[in-house]
């Protein structure tokens, strides 16, 4: 299994990454086409819902939250991968993250942007969104600062803006490389503007290092708090099935899990589409797979904790709901969640599958399906089987409009992500150089290589 070569010329790193901004493989355009198509379907459904009202989404009492909120949590969860790869592994000096953290950070940003849309879609009356904004007004409408929903809004805003800044700051040296390598045209102007006049002086690098590290330190507790707060939206309510103490760590583990699974999917796609075989290597993929497996087992354990705490509690309604999930109309989806989330990742334990790209691609899609189902199984069953029998409604099914908007969100995310990867370096050039430099230095010190990099 070949890893990144220590003797790779730095000019070649620049060339290879810059080439990805010019001519990707044709599959790129196919993906982009389907993304636009899916996004178009989502837009069509949203316009229809906007004009006709929330009734067309089949959201009613007791089913006030449906796929929109489930998918909102899914996208928030997906965003945690970027923080894991960029910030946590950065602090742990795991150098294998360097070729892949940029796209994970982009994933964080775009999945948060997608999640934010679902809040709007779920509100329905978009033209009255400003009612929810806390500013002095004469309507006597004022947000409740004690509500986790408001904490959520604040946490997501903080996370999104910090992630964008983290992504941008980390990209400045690469934008300067792009500026220096791009021929004249609007892209050169854009890179020149965004590079802020970076020249790699000792003063710039010194301050850059401290800044990047500081933001990374902020992002880790922020990421944990964001998903803990999302868990509080549920855990702090009295609804059956939600009032569980282990919800915050369960949500955080689920978030890291779905994020890692998505990283595997996108790793494989980018590796092929942008011809990054030399940088997104199989040993790196193997490490992500092992990390995902570990997180999958944590998630499975926390699932067991949740079920056990409901089962052995004296809350009969919550226990009824758990049985309802296992045996009622949601049972196929609930068991599919268990299968995809806890059984499928066992494939990762088998060594020969840890670098088998077709198997990993299919598995990562199944894991993501499982994680999406998990969010749906948190939200919808509780509304279908509440405290009072007269509120039970087991036969409600999300309308095609809901499904269409959920489908469209995947198109929107893919569109943003693929456009980003074509516009900006999705492999960090300067960090890959650092990685090969330090590795070659290490080898040189051990006397195994004769010559350095350049």
């Amino acid at each position, binding site marked *: 299994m070949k890893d990144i070569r220590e003797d790779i010329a730095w000019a070649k790193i620049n060339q290879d990454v810059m080439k990805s901004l010019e001519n990707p493989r044709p599959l790129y355009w196919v993906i982009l086409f389907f993304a636009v198509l899916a996004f178009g379907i989502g837009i069509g459904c949203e316009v229809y819902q906007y004009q006709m009202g929330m009734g067309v989404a089949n959201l009613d009492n007791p089913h006030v939250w449906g796929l929109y909120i489930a998918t909102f949590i899914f996208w928030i969860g997906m965003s945690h991968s970027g923080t894991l790869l960029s910030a946590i592994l950065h602090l742990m000096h795991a150098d294998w993250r360097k070729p892949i953290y940029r796209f994970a950070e982009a994933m964080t940003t775009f999945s948060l942007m997608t999640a934010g849309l679902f809040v709007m879609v779920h509100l329905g009356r978009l033209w009255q969104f400003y009612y929810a904004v806390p500013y002095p007004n004469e309507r006597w409408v*004022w947000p409740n600062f004690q509500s986790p929903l408001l904490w959520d809004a604040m946490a997501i805003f903080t996370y999104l803006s910090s992630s964008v*800044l983290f992504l941008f700051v980390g990209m400045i040296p690469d934008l300067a490389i792009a500026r220096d*390598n791009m021929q004249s045209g609007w892209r050169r102007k854009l890179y020149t503007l965004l590079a802020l006049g970076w*020249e*790699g002086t000792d003063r710039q690098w010194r301050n*850059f290092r401290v800044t990047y590290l*500081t933001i990374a330190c902020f992002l880790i507790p*922020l990421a944990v708090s964001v998903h803990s707060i999302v868990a509080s939206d549920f855990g702090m309510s009295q609804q059956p099935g939600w009032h569980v103490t282990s919800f915050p760590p369960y949500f955080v583990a689920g978030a890291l899990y779905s994020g890692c699974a998505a990283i595997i999917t996108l790793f494989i796609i980018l590796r092929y589409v942008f011809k990054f075989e030399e940088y997104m290597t199989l040993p790196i993929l193997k490490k992500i797979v092992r990390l995902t497996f570990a997180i999958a087992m944590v998630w499975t354990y926390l699932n067991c904790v949740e079920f056990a705490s409901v089962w052995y509690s004296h809350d009969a309604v919550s226990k009824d709901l758990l049985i309802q999930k296992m045996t009622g109309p949601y049972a196929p989806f609930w068991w599919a969640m268990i299968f995809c989330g806890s059984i499928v990742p066992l494939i990762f334990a088998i060594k020969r599958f840890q670098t088998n790209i077709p198997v990993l691609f299919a598995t990562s899609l199944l894991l993501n399906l499982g994680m999406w189902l998990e969010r749906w199984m948190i939200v919808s069953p509780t509304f279908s089987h509440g405290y009072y029998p007269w509120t039970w409604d087991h036969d409600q099914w999300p309308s095609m409009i809901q499904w269409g908007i959920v489908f469209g969100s995947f198109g929107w995310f893919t569109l943003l992500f693929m456009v980003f990867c074509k516009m900006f370096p999705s492999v960090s050039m300067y960090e890959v150089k*650092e990685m090969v430099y330090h590795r070659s230095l290490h080898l040189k010190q051990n006397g195994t290589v004769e010559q350095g990099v*350049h």
Partner: protein
Amino acid sequence: MSKRHLLALYGDFDQAEAVVRELRNTKINGFDVNDDMIVKSPIEHPEVERFLGDKPVYVQWFTLVGAVLGGSLGFLGISSAQANFFMQMKGGKPIVPLPPNFVLTYELFILGGVYITVLGFLICAALPAKRSPLYNAKVSVDNIGILVKAEEAAIGVLKTIFTKHKALEIQEEAGK
């Protein structure tokens, strides 16, 4: 007296380090090694700091101020909003409840910290910046650049030192 710029490019850090050492040890009239020299590198390199010596970084002070300001202003803002909104039924509970406000304070602490850190970075790194008089794109590939600013009389000595250490390329600003 007006000063001119000179940029020398080197293929590796050892050579660049040798040049900097010699510039430090040589007394050159019209050139101050601490103020008139900038080292440019394609990667964040600990060796550069080692041979240039420790220089202070102030970004973390911006971080501290930003985080403290974000947290305290956030708490005050939320508390005053709660205290002034009389329509919300409190039911005997505190007007300014500390546990929920802590969550928002925590978020705003981080928000302030991150924003002001980035501002501090821009100030401390002097960004956005105009392109320096001599710039070579090879610095963003794999070369180490040593940019010096010196009076006319010192230019010759500097060039000799750069050439002695096998500079790959020497760029000179046109005379004024």
